[in-house]
């Protein structure tokens, strides 16, 4: 296999992680909304925790993106 083709395939495989992080981020906001609708009075006080969870889930997807970019632009 040519180096360039292997590079592109590798970058594509690394990008799967971004999709996985999308599931995580969706889960964070989905769960928050679900419980916020059950107890709207407590929802506002948990906004900070919502964004901490979002940041943690997002970071892993962004790392996957960074890895894909490193593979794509290697050499």
């Amino acid at each position: 296999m040519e180096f360039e083709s292997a590079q592109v395939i590798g970058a594509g495989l690394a990008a799967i992680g971004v999709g996985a992080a999308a599931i995580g981020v969706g889960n964070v906001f989905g769960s928050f909304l679900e419980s916020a609708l059950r107890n709207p009075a407590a929802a506002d006080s948990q906004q900070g925790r919502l964004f901490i969870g979002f940041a943690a889930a997002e970071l892993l997807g962004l790392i996957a993106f960074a890895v894909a970019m490193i593979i794509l632009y290697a050499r």
Partner: protein
Amino acid sequence: MAAGRIDPMHQFTVEPLIPLKAGGLDLSFTNSALWMVLALAVITLFMWGGMKRQIVPGRWQMAVEGLTGFIDDMVQVNIGPEGRKFMPYIFSLFTFILACNLLGLMPLSIIPGQHQFTPTSHFSITGVLAVMSFSIVLIVGFWRHGLHFFSLFVPRGTPKVMIPLIAAIEFISFMVRPFSLALRLFVAMIAGHILLEVFGSFVVSGFQGGAMGWGVGLLSFIFIIGVSALELLVAAIQAYVFALLTTLYLNDAINLH
């Protein structure tokens, strides 16, 4: 963009505008510096317009008060009354990142010959911001608690057997903080700008093509409007998350846990 290969990385090149070499150092005034100065100018203008201390605040003053109140609230909730003295730092961090992110998204490249630049899309900038936050956490922690600060690595109520393992994990998660802070902001900005660039060039090269190209160009154009809106949201969220995590780390250093 000329037809042919899409080059999404070109927008991140740092070009010297006013070359200046001192000794072995390159101190040129680059486009990165220019956009940071622009961000500073925007912040100064915004704050200056709203700091007239009118008894009955106008719209502008309400906007400034809303911004400061928002950050003040965040600091009070997360750190407590002792966090007041860190409020200026958190506020500068938040407004600077927000201004840089938003200026990078404004359609200013429409002016011929201008090349837009987002300072926060570079690891050197976000890294310095993160290292600043991290050093403040370390200094405050050791200043207030001395060597007792190391109890941060052992949460209260940890069983004796687990202490070495937990301490190692907590130590790693503590040391990785500046990297995760810097990486999150810079990668989020890079990813957004690459996405915008790629779909923007789809629009251009699509409309140059035939009937099929028109379809592709139109779809990309509709898509890029949505992505731009999303990027505005991401710009605000990333600035907020950076400030929020800094307050949380400061809270760790001030109150231990």
